[in-house]
């Protein structure tokens, strides 16, 4: 009785959809198929074969890889750094800055897009004004294909430090003080304490943050959706946005479902690799 509502809803909206997605990824379901199920016909592996021939999809895979390669190390390192700084003291100053660093994570993505869109504005934006103070030329932050990717990464970086920092902070507070006291008696300096006690003991938190950040960046979606819609020239198109566009803009449900399974499989593979690496470390 207690469990029924939650289980029914989860089954209906999380588990059954997987089966449906797998099923329709082998069909040519589109808007016509939505109205009349009899018009849907099986497509075999055609969706999967075509998607790997689709230049936009290949581009989106490449872009997603760039996002991951630049974004993940940046976010993990910066959020650990901020957590270490915040853990340094306990006064009001540290408490207020904890809030300040966390704030971007809880703000609404559309509001963020609106504000950052204005910051990035070519004529009236703050960023170009700051560049002009230093005598640098104005940049087309969101219109230049290469720069647009980096602009989106900067925005997502700003937004994702907070949550990960909290996880590191919780982990830091779980490290017993006695370890440090023992090290101090042995004459360890601040840097040595950081390197030999803190960072190793943050191992699990780092692992957790890396996995979640990695999965997050592979599914990078909302920022390009609201900031650039994947443009210019698909330069910011991510895999997740490609799926959304095909599903909800072009109503190619079967094709989009195939794309979503490719994404899913990539996530599973990457996660498994992570766990394998982690296991090796522990044995060592």
């Amino acid at each position, binding site marked *: *009785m*207690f*469990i029924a*509502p*939650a*289980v029914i*809803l989860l089954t*209906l*909206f*999380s*588990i*059954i*959809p997987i089966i*449906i*997605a797998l099923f*329709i990824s082998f069909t040519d379901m589109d808007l016509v198929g*939505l109205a009349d199920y009899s018009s849907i016909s099986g497509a075999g592996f055609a969706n999967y074969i075509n998607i790997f021939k689709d230049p936009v999809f290949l581009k989106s895979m490449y872009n997603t890889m760039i996002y991951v390669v630049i974004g993940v190390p940046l976010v993990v390192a910066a959020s650990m750094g901020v957590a270490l*700084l*915040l853990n340094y*003291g306990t006064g009001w100053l540290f408490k207020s*800055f*904890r*809030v*300040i660093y966390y*704030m971007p994570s*809880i*703000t*609404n*993505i*559309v*509001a*963020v897009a*609106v*504000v950052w869109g*204005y910051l990035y504005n070519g*004529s*009236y934006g*703050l960023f170009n*004004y700051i560049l002009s103070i230093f005598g640098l030329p104005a940049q087309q932050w969101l219109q230049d294909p290469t720069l647009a990717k980096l602009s989106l990464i900067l925005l997502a970086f*700003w937004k994702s430090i907070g949550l990960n920092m*909290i*996880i590191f902070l*919780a*982990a830091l*507070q779980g490290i017993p003080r006695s370890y440090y006291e023992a090290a101090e008696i042995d004459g360890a300096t601040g840097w040595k304490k950081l390197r030999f006690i803190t960072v190793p003991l943050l191992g699990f*938190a780092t692992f957790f943050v890396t996995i979640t950040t990695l999965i997050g960046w592979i599914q990078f*979606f*909302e920022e390009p959706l609201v900031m650039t819609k994947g443009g210019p020239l698909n330069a910011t198109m991510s895999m*997740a946005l490609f*799926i959304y566009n095909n*599903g*909800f803009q072009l109503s190619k*449900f079967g094709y*989009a*479902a195939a*794309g*979503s399974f490719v*994404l*899913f499989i990539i*996530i599973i593979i990457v996660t498994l690799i992570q766990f394998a690496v982690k296991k090796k470390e522990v044995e060592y």
Partner: protein
Amino acid sequence: MALRMKHIEKGLMIALLIIGGLLMMVPFIWMIGSSFKPENEFTVIPPTLFPSHPTFSNYRDLFVKMDFVIYLKNTLIIVLCSFVGLFLNAMAGYAFAKFDFPGKNKFFYIILATMMIPGQVTMIPTYLIINQLHLVNTMAGIVLPGLVGAFAIFLFRQFMTTIPIDLLEAARLDGAGELRIFFQLMVPIVKPVFAVQGILTFIGAWNSFLWPLIIANDERLYTLSVGLSLLKGQYGTEFGLQMAGAAFMVVPIIIIFIFFQKHIIEGYTISGIK
């Protein structure tokens, strides 16, 4: 000497923290400042961080010229519904923690596994299901898919497992019904988890954007985020209106967060991410 080094080190850390923090704040300061600018102040070079002729007209226009009253109402409905979902999560967590039934562990693992599924995989089929249920363009269609969540169920279960079963037995012997035990005994005990999940639920519901965008075709069902994205598209050059809309979405969340931030940070410790 060593003490002096320590002072210098601390000063350096604080300086770094403040510089980083200010950089994080720039978009917020820019947003708040700009939301009070009259429209002609947006093209001024150099741009002003704070308006020289502050005005409230941008905020007024949100409600007078735009339909932000309706969007706000819809958003608040979603927030209320999501709190119902919070109780459903708590009930499910309670059942997993304190009852024995066939297939209990299997069910629990399946629920945990749903956390792994990327949103993009379920997005399209969920839309098809909602369509099949004739709930497209209804509030129910917006709210139902996100009502319960695996993470919250997990968190409630973890916390409730630590509560001694004797307490429940005692209440049962006194003749309390199961629902009464849940609401009068369990809910007060797990208040900390409710606090964390309550805030996260509120933030999530207040910010809900993508799903309402997909399901609602009718402007009467738009949420604040969808309304704001509409504003961004149609009034792309009216920065004042856009900034006021953004501030209207962001500031309440920040205020709530500042009040409850202690609970959120404790919540992560409770969930055992160490």
